[in-house]
């Protein structure tokens, strides 16, 4: 199950923003993305390497720069 995959990879759920996030990996998945994508893609995205200086957001519709900044502020 997707929830177990995220839990296993130490992702937390932000109830206010409906996103799964991992501060160490600096990755965040929207609830819509998790719902819509197959488990294989989720596993691939969790494992892929990213620019660790900034957060990477996995959304169905890519968030604007302003939305990214807001979420980065919220996620810390």
């Amino acid at each position, binding site marked *: 199950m997707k929830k177990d995959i995220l839990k296993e990879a130490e992702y937390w759920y932000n109830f206010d923003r409906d996103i799964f996030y991992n501060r160490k990996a600096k990755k965040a998945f*929207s609830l819509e993305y998790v719902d819509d994508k197959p488990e294989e893609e989720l596993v691939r995205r969790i494992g892929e390497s990213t620019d660790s200086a900034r957060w990477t957001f996995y959304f169905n519709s890519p968030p604007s720069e302003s*939305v990214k900044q807001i979420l980065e502020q919220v996620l810390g």
Partner: protein
Amino acid sequence: MPERTNKERPIVNRLREEYFDLLPEIRRVVWQLETEIRYLTLPILHSLKRHEQLVVKSRIKECESAVNTLRDQQEGRTFDPDKPGGYSLLDLPDLAGVRILVFPNNKLVEVDNALHNRFLGWTSKPVKDDKEAVLAPKYYGYCEDVSSKVRGEYQIVPMLIGLFWDVEHSAMYKSRGAANSVEMKKYRADVYSALARFEEGIENFERIYTELFS
């Protein structure tokens, strides 16, 4: 209250301002809609048997609830300050809402038919369960006599489900994630199924009782 950042605050403040500008119009829509629905369902109300019920309830969506509903529709539940055209509460179809609760379920079609002609041009968007079965017919549109901006919405709901929703909504509104989890979907399906069985039981009992004593 959701945590809001400085960038979102101006958007939220604008939406609150819009809400209070619209409030007199929302009130007029809900009064009109409730009055028309009460009038059109009056013959059904007067013909109810002792155990049957029909209750018409209206509500105006509260300011914070309206803002949060609009916010819930954004992925990541975040208002985008760069969105062209900004946001408007007029995108919500349910600022003025009427719920008609019926018991037992067989009254639902009767009420739906009684309202059909009056609200012919309204958009149908029934409430469905997780298996896409219709739980409650729902419609939204304009009461043109009173507003061309604010839409009204009415839904006809089996009473037991409607009362369950009152409790469920209060408990689950903070988290769509929890509400949509596999576990909660199963519990919800169990409740719907139990309520449906109860209604069937009542209807069967009523039928047998009527046949025995008629």
